[in-house]
């Protein structure tokens, strides 16, 4: 965290100065470790063994079993008490086979790379069925993996057609889950979790991860002592967890642990993902990602096992009768209205049939394989540098040469834009000749952040507005300008096309022209904020779109009158009367002139006191800062403790402290007494009493009791056990990385790798065999504080380039001595994909780890390389990602560049 998010680490240091314990678990001793109270070394790729060990330690500990808080939290707020189908088989069954029930051969499109496929019928809650959409848009669901859930209900009532869609939602109701709140039933989730992790003992953790047993126990004990009613512990992670063929399972293993420790939904608890780009959160919310459309709704799919043929089919497949997702029809219809505007009517399912469908896994890696096989002709590469950042970068650069045309937009002449030119590794090695490369390449120079208006959403879901301060030089244009002009000119060409396939583009709403309405929007802002920079009417470069109209479309407005912005997503309707691109962002622009993202009036002392600063920017949804914060109060609505008070139920409150309006029942109009209040926006129905019990046949949030904090899950509970949502198992299980230095998985001897992951074995993407003596060392890639990702925003800046001028390989002193390598000697690092040279940085910060391969001890050395360098820019070096491979996790097709194997020798 101190390495790549130093300013976030500020608050960790403030906590440490107040006595907090900082634990850092990492294969390398980094700048974060330097400030940690406890540093635990770990073999790259074995985090589930480590976390599973803590779960096992916690469940069997005296404190967890005697302190009433833990059981009260787990029974009420998690699905620990839920009974699972008897037919469910855990990885421990059949002499620890290492597989769950329901594993089958994958028969779908080979391009999707699945090595196996689960059918999660046997993972369901006993006697009920969670529809297959666990609301995590994953390639498994929206992609090519047919995931049917629950017992085949053949006699489904004919699903009525909306709008309104209330009937449709009602038709999806399923019987409630069966519970055993004593947590004794052998098939209840708690017992399944207990047996699943029973063999993750401290000794096993040492044998798998190489972390000394005492150090592991110190970590587990510290976490346990610092959780409870008056104390919370929190986790922060980055791509060290994400980039594995079981990345999502690693992160859900942490969620499982934090639920057991009662840290979810509470101040100073939870899990914080430290994301790496200014608005990577924004680009997954407003997704330039193939598998989902706005607000985490799955992208309409025509893959086998998915029934999205019509809008009704889509809503039936993806809507949950219970939880806030019951409003899916409102979100989807409003989204379609934002796409096709007036042309989207009730009669034509709001233009659903014009909307494209995905037909499989169109993620980064498969697309580059398609490109390599000549099936992709054109590419837009906007502010990304796959020639350096892409896995198996040599394959990706060669694939680029198969394109007919490539449009790159960035600030500097990045490697991706000049893969064809002298200087690129392939051209230098003679593998490609510029004359043979037929790609037509365009480079459009870009504005930088202070040269345009716009917003970023940070890693805490906080959207903040950046105000334009100066003009960009020369032909640099904003990214908005490029896409707006592309759309405007394309629509002009399609204007009078009569072909049915052009209906979509013809009806696409593209009214972002700067006109007098723009001036009105800006003047409204001037009256409220008085900030002159916001109301600056300097003329924008010719052809620039009006960005406030785009924000209005994201926020949503009454379809009939654009000046009536939606206050928040509660106003969404499913009859087309409301237009809103992103339901989760609704509320960022509640009225002309009220650009909440540009709010900068929070009292900074609040953040010093660790309290949410609601007046600064806008955090979706509805400016809530800590999600599921109902869990920060006891089931009866009172705070768990005075120290950890956040949101609680005030039974005799009659007037809303924020809006100063009396609470009234919407349906009946009578005044109501009692509401949820606190330092954060409550993540709960405002006036629902803690002891509320849902009536029979209720849908949406009415179907949840007053003690259900997890309002997005259909059972309102935090999931220790995931019956659906993840395609590679309901419980996190330790498997070895695809390229591992050992031949046998210590926990599950017959199951070395995850039974379900994405593997693309081809001659230009070969994998090292497990325990391959040619590639004995564990390789991991990572980032440095001084550079930014593929180096585009740091290697061209002298002030940053001089701080870390050259690529280096971090090698432990022991390995360096074995290989006779001195500090700053040139070494060659090689993997089955390729080899590169770099200077060795010999250090004792990396230590050899002793693990077990089968029953024999084995010493494993880690080799680390920061991957920022490329052959362009001021600071130049080899492309480290030439070494990594194309391999993916089955849920989100993320690669495994955090843990693979390599060989090192003196160059």
């Amino acid at each position: 965290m101190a390495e790549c998010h130093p300013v976030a680490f500020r608050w960790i240091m403030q906590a440490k100065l107040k006595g907090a314990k900082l634990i850092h678990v990492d294969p390398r001793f980094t700048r974060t470790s330097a400030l940690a109270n406890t540093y635990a070394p770990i073999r790259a790729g074995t985090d589930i063994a480590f976390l599973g060990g803590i779960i096992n330690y916690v469940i069997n500990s005296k404190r967890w079993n005697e302190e009433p808080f833990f059981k009260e939290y787990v029974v009420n707020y998690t699905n620990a008490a839920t009974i699972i189908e008897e037919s469910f088989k855990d990885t421990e069954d059949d002499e620890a086979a290492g597989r769950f029930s329901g594993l089958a051969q994958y028969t779908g499109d080979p391009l999707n790379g699945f090595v196996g496929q689960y059918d999660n019928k046997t993972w369901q809650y006993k006697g009920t069925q969670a529809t297959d959409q666990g609301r995590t848009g994953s390639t498994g669901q929206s992609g090519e993996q047919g995931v049917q859930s629950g017992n085949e209900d053949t006699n489904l009532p004919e699903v009525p057609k909306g709008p309104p869609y209330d009937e449709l939602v009602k038709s999806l109701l399923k019987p409630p889950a069966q519970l055993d709140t004593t947590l004794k039933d052998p098939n209840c989730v708690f017992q399944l979790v207990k047996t699943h992790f029973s063999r993750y003992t401290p000794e096993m953790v040492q044998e798998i991860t190489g972390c000394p047993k005492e150090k592991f126990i110190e970590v587990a004990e510290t976490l346990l002592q610092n959780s409870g009613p008056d104390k919370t512990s929190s986790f922060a992670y980055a791509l060290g967890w994400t980039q594995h063929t079981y990345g999502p399972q690693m992160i859900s293993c942490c969620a499982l642990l934090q639920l057991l420790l009662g840290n979810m939904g509470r101040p100073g608890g939870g899990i914080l993902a430290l994301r790496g780009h200014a608005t990577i959160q924004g680009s997954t919310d407003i997704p330039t990602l193939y598998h989902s459309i706005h607000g985490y709704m799955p992208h309409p799919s025509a893959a086998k096992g998915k029934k999205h043929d019509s809008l009704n089919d889509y809503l039936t497949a993806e809507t949950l009768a219970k939880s806030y997702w019951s409003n899916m029809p409102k979100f989807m219809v409003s989204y379609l209205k934002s796409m096709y505007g007036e042309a989207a009517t009730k009669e034509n399912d709001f233009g659903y049939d014009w909307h494209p469908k995905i037909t499989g896994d169109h993620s980064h890696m498969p697309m580059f394989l398609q490109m390599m096989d000549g099936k992709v002709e054109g590419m837009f590469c906007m502010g990304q540098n796959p020639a350096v950042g892409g896995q198996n970068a040599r394959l990706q650069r060669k694939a680029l040469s198969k394109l007919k045309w490539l449009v790159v937009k960035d600030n500097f002449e990045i490697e991706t834009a000049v893969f064809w030119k002298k200087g690129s590794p392939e051209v230098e090695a003679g593998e490609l000749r510029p004359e043979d490369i037929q790609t037509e390449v365009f480079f459009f120079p870009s504005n930088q952040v202070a040269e345009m208006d716009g917003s970023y959403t940070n890693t805490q879901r906080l959207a903040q507005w950046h105000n334009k301060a100066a003009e960009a030089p020369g032909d640099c244009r904003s990214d908005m300008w490029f896409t707006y002009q592309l759309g405007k000119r394309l629509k002009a060409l399609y204007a009078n096309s009569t072909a049915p396939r052009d209906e979509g583009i013809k009806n696409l709403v593209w009214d972002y022209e700067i006109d007098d309405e723009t001036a009105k929007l800006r003047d409204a802002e001037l009256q409220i904020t008085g900030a002159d920079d916001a109301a600056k009417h300097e003329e924008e470069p010719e052809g620039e779109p009006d960005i406030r109209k785009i924000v209005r479309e994201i926020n949503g407005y009454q379809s009939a009158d654009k000046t009536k912005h939606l206050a928040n997503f509660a106003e969404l309707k499913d009859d087309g009367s409301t237009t809103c691109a992103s339901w989760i962002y609704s509320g960022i622009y509640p009225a002309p002139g009220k650009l909440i993202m540009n709010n900068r009036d929070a009292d900074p002392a609040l953040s010093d006191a660790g309290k949410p600063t609601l007046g600064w920017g806008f955090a979706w949804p509805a400016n809530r800062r800590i999600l599921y914060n109902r869990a920060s109060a006891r089931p009866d609505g009172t705070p768990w403790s005075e120290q950890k008070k956040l949101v609680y139920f005030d039974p005799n409150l009659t007037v809303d402290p924020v809006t100063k309006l009396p609470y009234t029942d919407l349906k009946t109009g009578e005044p109501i007494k009692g509401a949820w209040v606190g330092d954060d926006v409550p993540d709960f129905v405002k006036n629902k009493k803690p002891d509320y019990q849902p009536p029979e046949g209720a849908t949406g949030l009415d179907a949840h009791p007053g003690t259900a904090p997890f309002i997005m899950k259909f059972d309102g509970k935090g999931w220790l056990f995931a019956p659906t949502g993840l395609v590679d198992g309901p419980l996190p299980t330790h498997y070895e990385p695809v390229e591992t230095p050992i031949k046998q998985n210590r926990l599950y001897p017959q199951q070395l790798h995850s039974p379900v992951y994405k593997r693309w074995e081809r001659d230009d993407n070969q994998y090292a065999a497990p325990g391959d003596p040619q590639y004995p060392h564990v390789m991991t890639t990572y980032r440095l504080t001084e550079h930014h990702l593929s180096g585009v925003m740091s290697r061209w800046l002298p002030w940053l380039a001089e701080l870390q001028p050259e690529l280096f390989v971090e090698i432990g002193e022991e390995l360096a001595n074995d290989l006779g390598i001195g500090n700053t000697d040139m070494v060659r690092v090689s993997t089955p994909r390729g080899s590169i040279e770099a200077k060795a940085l010999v250090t004792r910060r990396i230590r050899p780890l002793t693990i077990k391969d089968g029953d024999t001890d084995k010493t494993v050395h880690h080799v680390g390389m920061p991957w920022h360098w490329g052959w362009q820019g001021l600071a130049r070096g080899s492309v480290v990602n030439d070494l990594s491979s194309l391999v993916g996790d089955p849920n989100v097709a993320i690669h495994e560049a955090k843990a693979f194997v390599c060989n090192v020798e003196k160059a």
Partner: protein
Amino acid sequence: MATMTQTPARREPHGFFTDTTVCIGCKACEVACKQWNQLASETGGQQPLSGDSYDNTQRLDGMNWRHVKFIEQFSADPQRTQQSRWLMMSDVCKHCVRAGCIEVCPTGAIIRTEFDTVVIQADTCNGCRACISACPFGVIDINENAKVAQKCTLCYDRTTIGEQPACSKACPTASIQYGPLNGPNGLKAKAQERVQQLKEQGVDQAQLYGADDKIVGGLNSFYLLVDRPQVYGLPENPQLPSRNLGPSSALTTVGAAVMGLLGLVSLRKKRMDHFAGQPADRER
């Protein structure tokens, strides 16, 4: 020599307290300093890897007024059990209470500001480089752009308009703190508290470097260290150059006197020879 410029009202001495125990080696101070003072990068990132842990700046000079040091202290055993520590520290001009550079500067370019900090005036300095040889901490050097000696100015242009220096403002973990030095909530009081807190937590080597007057009269930019100063590359008993002025001048004057006598004695024409008219004992 009286001068025409009048002396401003002296204000509370200000300076830096750098608590190295919370420094995360992120180098924000190095970049923020270069951004504010518009200092160019000598190599622009095209220099070789230093091989000295994550420190590729290597030292303070005319172009680098901030320099973050990395000191890896790990025991040789594979588990690094005896010692496992990575010290980091942001080095800067110490703005000494008794400044060696001011003592030797012949042109008056180096002055003492009303904040009791030390600043080199770029338009007065003629690059004689005496200050470089005099600085006990090796902080000053020639700025290739400006062709004069330069070093940290403690953001004299910012502090006069009430702004914080660029580096202390940028430091994420408040390892670099700026403010008045003395007084109940001055930096020195805070530093003492912090040392106390660390000692209670078992860091018994926690010490302040330059908070008292033992080191060249005290450092307006002083440090909290957890190891001997020379492990951080700081001299343990830095001296003022003027310590040698007296004895050196005295000995040289004695030498001159001896020289004079020797000259007189040796070169004196023999009186008798002169009067006697015989040539000196040329034949012998």
